[in-house]
């Protein structure tokens, strides 16, 4: 099962082969979830969206299964769903006038030291322009290629590559400043 392509797995799931779904879930669930949770900042909501993303990809007859774009497609759907969920939440919050900051992402799997590292990295990523932060997430969490990132962001491949490189430079500069501050402090 592990040597089958993503496309072959999707076709198999549509024919009712449930083991193909297990393999597809193993390949994408963690990555897509990691991407979603950065967007919506809520574990339950990200889990809900993850289910929606999988069902959408599996149902979508328009998905070209010859093109080798399944990975990119998962994240395109995830991005669209997450964006619409965030927009809806903002609208609801505006209506209710209870716009509170989102609770921090809970990741019970990590220990305190790891949590601190996550917080520092998140701080570094938060300082980036949204397209750069997204390109970085798609690369680091999603493991997508430049071409797939370009597909998700609907930009030329060169632009996606440039965004990613800028993001990495900015994050590294943030880390360097932080280390410098620690040394001086």
């Amino acid at each position: 099962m592990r040597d089958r392509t993503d496309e072959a797995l999707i076709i198999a799931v549509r024919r009712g082969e449930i083991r193909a779904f297990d393999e597809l879930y193993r390949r994408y669930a963690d990555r897509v979830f990691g991407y979603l949770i950065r967007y919506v900042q809520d574990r339950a909501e990200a889990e809900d969206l993850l289910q929606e993303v999988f069902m959408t990809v599996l149902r979508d007859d328009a998905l070209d299964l010859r093109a080798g774009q399944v990975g990119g497609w998962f994240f395109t759907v995830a991005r669209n769903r997450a964006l619409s969920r965030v927009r809806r939440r903002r609208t609801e919050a505006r209506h209710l006038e209870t716009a509170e900051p989102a609770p921090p992402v809970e990741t019970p799997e990590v220990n305190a030291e790891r949590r601190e590292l996550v917080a520092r990295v998140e701080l570094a990523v938060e300082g980036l322009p949204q397209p750069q932060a997204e390109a970085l997430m798609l690369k680091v969490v999603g493991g997508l290629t430049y071409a797939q990132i370009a597909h998700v962001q609907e930009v030329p491949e060169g632009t996606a590559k440039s965004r990613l490189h800028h993001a990495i430079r900015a994050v590294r500069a943030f880390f360097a400043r932080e280390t410098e501050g620690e040394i001086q402090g």
Partner: protein
Amino acid sequence: MNHEDCIDALHDHHFGELDRARDEQVRSHLAECGDCALEYCRLRADLDRLDALATARPGPAVRVALRAKVESEFTPSAWSRLVAFCTLRVPIYQPVAVLALVVAVVALAWPTDAPSSARTDHPTVVDQFDGSDVRIVDHRVL
């Protein structure tokens, strides 16, 4: 390859996005150049820190719920499997071949008892011949 080219290509090298020839050039340069090798180590260390972003995992209940949804939506029922079998498109020679096969089997299995039973129930003249009791036939022919 010089320093600048190598530094520019380090991100792509790390992510496996270079073509084979270019990747080999970067590897060779890193093996020879201490400064670039050090820069690559720093880059890898920073990118390893970014892996902290990928620690969140969905709960096991998500998989169970999603699996049930997929199973109920995509696993065909017995009835739909039967319908699918009945409406299966087959090449035109396939029913002809099946029919020919059935005819051949029936023809081989059909009892061909007429000649064999005649031989057993009604012995032939030759079987009843007795050499010691030959009847002399005396008829005038002319």
